[in-house]
């Protein structure tokens, strides 16, 4: 059975956000969760490296707090104990999870369900934990759909294209208007 992501997200959304576990407390909660998976917890320096891997250690620390918050206050923590991963490179995977959250606007996490889903999905993906009711392909598709960096890049591309079309349209209209003063009698 996979991780019940839906109820986890629902619970997370319903919780008052403050105060999240801070600093060493959040690392301790995460260590417990990882122990529940039957794995050795990361070292303190591995947590620091992971936090820095998202591009900004301070923001990385907040993301670790979000994960700790989810582990301690939702069914996520209990569901981890049902899984026994065969891999052992925990520190590398934690680093990879946080690195994949580069650019994620952490300030949006408390009030935005998509960002919370993104954080949890990226963590579960890095730790190869299956999601209840989803095939690996479906999980990958959904992860892509909530990936902030990907969405922002697409929106930026769309905005560039929108401006390009708007500029071209303004230019064409101006050309036509300037070249054909009697255009008021135009066709159709």
């Amino acid at each position, binding site marked *: 059975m996979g991780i019940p992501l839906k109820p986890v997200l629902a619970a997370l959304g319903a919780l008052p956000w403050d105060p999240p576990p801070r600093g060493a407390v959040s690392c301790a909660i995460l260590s417990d969760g990882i122990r529940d998976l039957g794995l050795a917890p990361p070292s303190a320096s591995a947590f620091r490296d992971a936090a820095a891997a998202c591009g900004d250690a301070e923001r990385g620390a907040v993301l670790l707090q979000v994960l700790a918050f989810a582990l301690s206050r939702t069914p996520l923590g209990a569901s981890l104990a049902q899984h026994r991963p065969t891999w052992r490179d925990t520190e590398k995977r934690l680093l990879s999870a946080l690195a994949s959250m580069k650019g994620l606007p952490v300030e949006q996490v408390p009030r935005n369900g998509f960002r919370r889903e993104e954080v949890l999905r990226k963590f579960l993906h890095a730790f190869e934990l299956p999601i209840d009711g989803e095939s690996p392909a479906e999980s990958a598709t959904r992860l892509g759909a909530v990936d902030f960096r990907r969405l922002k890049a697409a929106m930026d591309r769309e905005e560039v294209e*929108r401006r*390009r*079309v*708007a500029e*071209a*349209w303004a230019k*064409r*209209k101006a*050309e*036509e*208007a300037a*070249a*054909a*003063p*009697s*255009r*008021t*009698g*135009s*066709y*159709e």
Partner: protein
Amino acid sequence: MALVSRLDGSRGWRDRLGAAGLSARALLGRPLEELGDWPGLSREELSRDPLPWLALREGELEGMYAAWSSGSSGQGPLAVPRFDVDGEDRLARFAEAARARGVDLSSARCGAFLCALPGRPEPLTWLGQARTVPVQRLSLLKDGWAERLCALAPDFWTLSPAGLARVLASGASVPSPRVVLSTALQLPGELRREAERRLRCPVVDLFSTAETGPFAAGCPADGRHFHVLTGGAFVRVDAGGLRVTRLGDSPLPLLNYLVADRAAGLASACPSCRHSGPTLLGLTGRTLSEKGEHSTAAFLPRAPAT
């Protein structure tokens, strides 16, 4: 269906259909008659900002130009985007209208756009740089147009009633085309009959807008009714207003587009001839008027055609 993928690619249409709990994909496999329940777009909305309604593909932006939709049926003139790629669809509608009058344009060598408009030449893209049939623009306001027309000897002419009146009034001896396709404004019956008599070919009154292209052709028996060109458009009459859904592939997809013209009704067959397809009755909109700068009358020569 080309329309579905274009609607899907347009931000404006995605939002509009989404707000109604619909998506363009849901159009697939549904009869067009059910379109009455679907959201549409008005001419006013389109002219306010046409850009959200576009669904451009790679390279199509370069072929965009501003076409001015006349104000003969309401506000205007309004700028609407048109594209090179629309030219093929326009030619297909010309061929459809000609076929209905017994003229096969499938083997046409070339056509001519006889332009009576002052000002800068309309870009050839007005008809598209058609890949299938080249359409040469000839300005009727420039000396020597008759000679050039003789040299070109096109299979068909496309022009406005003003252009047709000017050709007839000139008395020039030019080779008759196989068909004349009049667009832009309503073709007076008298002018049509005179042109058919002198040019010895069918003269088709096409009902067309800058946004949709031609979508109906005047009944040869009774110029008041218009046969819908079903190959390119699905037309409805909604409380007297004409709603046009363009079926062809265009970067400006139009679904239930409310043009500013009106019709008394839509019959399943023409009451005046043997045409058995949808026919618009009592179509009004782009009529000639004595005044008004957007009307063809402004360009009609003072002297009557002889």
